């Protein structure tokens, strides 16, 4: 669409262009250029955000027009819907373990990759590969890896003398299985950390070495503070992402066993697109939005205590 428009305007008469010069032209053309995004934002983001807020106060199942029911969806969710609380717990559990563990594993991998040893880029390639292959095929692979009798993971565990749990078929082990799988996908975070580590000035380490700081001290007093904005960023994005886990749960367990992997967005999907309870699902979406917003604001508040920004004087 833009292509056709573009070629027409390239050959637009010169006189037309001349009238549109100077400050006003710049303003108008600025808006013309950002207009696809601006229109898209209104149609696909702002409008729907408002619409879903309004929908959340209605009973709407697609066949009949929406019916205003006030706060009923919210009251039902919070008071009567056991699965809402189960799904919220499942997502909170998953976030609580997968995000911090993911950050620690990714940070450790990035530190190793930052050693700049010959041939090290091969490992970066390997660690990032799971990220580009995420999706249904990977979900299928992990069902098979987690197979209690014949899967690779229990084979490895048994070969070091550990008992192999039931993983995806055991309600107690299904969520840890998802956490374990999420650790395989930390490659994106590794690359971000690696870029951050490469930006820490060498002179800081050299000065500390002259002062007699050992590797442990250098790590805690230089690497961690210098990296704290990156850690903070990954923490925020990690929490937002982990609350929205869907594809793996949908494909691997469908929410089972005994709702142990019924994550929040999976339950929202089942309400909205399984039972077509659009108003109810919209209310769930808004609750999720508020949860994520509150968690982000808490993080921002806490960040003042531990995130160090260069050039900032602490006092």
């Amino acid at each position: 669409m833009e292509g056709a428009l573009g070629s027409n305007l390239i050959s637009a008469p010169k006189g037309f262009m001349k009238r549109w010069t100077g400050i006003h032209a710049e303003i108008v053309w600025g808006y013309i250029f950002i207009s696809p995004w601006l229109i898209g934002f209104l149609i696909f983001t702002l409008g729907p955000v408002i619409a879903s807020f309004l929908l959340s106060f209605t009973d709407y199942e697609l066949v009949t027009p929406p019916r205003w029911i006030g706060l009923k969806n919210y009251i039902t969710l919070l008071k009567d819907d056991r699965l809402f609380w189960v799904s919220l717990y499942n997502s909170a559990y998953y976030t609580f373990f997968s995000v911090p563990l993911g950050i620690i594993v990714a940070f450790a991998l990035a530190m190793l990759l930052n050693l700049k040893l010959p041939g090290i880029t091969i490992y970066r390639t390997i660690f990032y590969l799971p990220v580009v292959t995420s999706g249904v095929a990977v979900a299928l692979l992990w069902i098979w890896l987690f197979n209690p009798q014949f899967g690779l993971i229990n084979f490895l565990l048994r070969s070091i003398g550990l008992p192999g749990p039931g993983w995806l078929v055991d309600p107690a082990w299904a969520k840890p299985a998802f956490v374990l799988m999420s650790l395989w996908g930390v490659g994106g975070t590794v690359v971000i950390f690696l870029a951050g580590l490469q930006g820490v000035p060498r002179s800081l380490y050299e000065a500390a070495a002259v002062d007699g700081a050992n590797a442990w001290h250098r790590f805690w007093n230089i690497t961690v503070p210098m990296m704290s904005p990156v850690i903070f960023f990954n923490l925020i994005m990690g929490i937002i992402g982990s609350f929205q886990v869907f594809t793996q749960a949908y494909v691997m367990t469908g929410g089972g066993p005994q709702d142990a992997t019924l994550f929040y967005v999976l339950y929202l999907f089942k309400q909205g697109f399984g039972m077509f309870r659009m108003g109810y699902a919209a209310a769930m979406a808004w609750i999720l939005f508020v949860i994520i917003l509150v968690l982000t604001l808490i993080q921002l508040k806490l960040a003042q205590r531990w995130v160090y920004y260069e050039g900032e004087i602490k006092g």
Partner: protein
Amino acid sequence: MLDSIGGRALSGVRIKRSAGVLGAYLLLGGLGFLFSLPFLWMVSSSLKVEADIWLYPPKWIPDPILWSNYPRALELMKFPLLLSNTLFITATSTVGFLLSCSWVVYGFARFRFPGRDFLFVVLLSTMMLPAQVTMIPVFIMFREFGWLNTFKPLIVPSFFGNPFFIFLLRQFFMTIPTELDDAAKIDGCSYVGIWWRIILPLSKPALATVTVFSFIWNWNDFLGPLIYLNDERKFTLALGLATFRGLYSTQWGYLMAASVVVLLPCVVIYFFTQRYFIEGITLTGIHG
């Protein structure tokens, strides 16, 4: 005496250093091996006869090597049809992203107008918005348009830009001097002409990054096709693979063969364009 102590200390440091390097290699090698095991397991399983799948302890090298899982699985999941659907959606959506995002970023990066910085902050903040908040009204809207069971809901939004790509391109643009577009302006080139003749060619490396990310996202997208497509002839590979699993839930030879084929294009593209992935992540801090 002193010399020998010094020499011993020096070689001690050297031994410590090379032990450290060796340790790092061993650790990396071990972890790298651990990370690639799932892929090796996948390929190994895809070549096994039924009896070898259900064998404990498992055999890593299939004997006999059963290539026929591949043609059989591809036939059962109607691979050519799903591939052409997926390629069509991926290609069209990518063209949409490339045109719209480069067009929009030109406005944000090179023009001064009231509200620009505010709108850019709005754009950035939409990246944090959980998609579920907009998903339901957008679905209802596309349903009203009569777009259910067509590719349009998966393609049309791409022509309205994407905050991640616009952010990425803008970061890239901050590093490019404005001299070329200034010169073109003096030569009487229109803004649209500058976008087409200067902005697009200049941003080729960043547009390559957009292309590879768009490919991977569209290829792996599951929720979109799941919501909007219900006719099996319109399915994408991701959706078809999930359906295939429902039909042959224990046929791991077939399932792994189909999965390998669906993964392979992403792996190949990644191997050849790794630089662009890393650049995209480093410029924006977002890992897709």
